């Protein structure tokens, strides 16, 4: 029980520190991602051991899809907008995906085999 409590406290502490920084400096940067970077640096420096956060981080990551379904259903309030912009959205997103696949794939292949 205690290990769940400790890992929950660490994760929440990182999140609130992230929120505090975002708020104090009036940044548009998503505060949860700040929290993630804080936890990441704690893990890298060894201040927090990876098995200490595991009791809470593992189930959170495992069921993450469940956590954003309610927000996703909010699309229901924007169906009109989606319909009006369907062409624009599909064109821009699909081409962006193709360009990224090509850029990343070819670039890394080139960097890894400089002789070819």
């Amino acid at each position, binding site marked *: 029980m205690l290990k769940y409590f400790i890992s*929950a406290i660490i*994760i*929440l502490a*990182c*999140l609130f520190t*992230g929120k505090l920084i975002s708020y104090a400096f009036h940044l548009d*940067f*998503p505060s*949860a*991602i700040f*929290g*993630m*970077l*804080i*936890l*990441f640096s704690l893990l*890298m420096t060894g201040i927090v051991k990876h098995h200490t*956060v595991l009791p*809470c*981080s593992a189930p*959170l*990551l495992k069921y*993450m899809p*469940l*956590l*954003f*379904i*309610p*927000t*996703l*259903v*909010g*699309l*229901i309030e*924007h169906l009109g*907008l*989606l319909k009006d*912009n369907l*062409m*624009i*959205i599909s*064109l*821009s*997103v*699909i*081409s*962006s*995906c193709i*360009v*990224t*696949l*090509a850029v*990343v*794939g*070819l*670039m*890394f*292949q080139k960097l*890894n*085999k400089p002789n070819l």
Partner: protein
Amino acid sequence: MIYIGIILTIVIFFVFKAIQNKTNWLILNPILLTMLLIMLILISTESTYSDYANSNLPLTLLLEPAIVALAVPLYKEFIYIKSQLNNILITCTLGVLSSTSTALCIAYMLGADNQIIASVAPNAVTSPIAMTLANSLGGIAALAAAIVILIGVLGAVFAHPFLKFIGVSDKAAQGLAMGSACHALGTARAVEINSKIGAFASVSLIISAVLTSIILPILYPLLMSVLKSI
């Protein structure tokens, strides 16, 4: 009956997840199917979204702690890829720049408004991060997340054949490309194809997500002001 909404979400999600585990078809994405079914239920019972959202508040509140928890896989991958870190960082940065700027520029040129542009820009990152990013840029979180998942389903099917078609034969490069362009679903497919492709896909999934969260809030206003001044 405030609990109905949250019970609905959980039950439907696990049913679709069980179906997918049985059939192993990536097209039967449980997130997408759950979303569609709940939307149908809300429409047919004439319920309001705000009632449903209130009922699901406990789930939604856990999303931010879950994003923080993403630091754990990032940390694990970091140790694994240390020797190739530089090349991976360069490639993923390029990937992030190309995915966000391509989507943003095309949407802008086709005449989309700011709300739509901010929702398509983070199309290459994993949905919870795309949601927070779209929100902070003034887009629609739900739209951004739906786009991300659709791209993931498409990418899971077409990305690997496409990469082979354009001559990317290196397994590490294939994985990296699938993770950064098609995020979690591309990564799931990559793991199926080959464990090396899968490992690199999960590395680039998480590194691209972090890089996008750092780059996009700076790049978005910059590109928008450049595009508007042309």
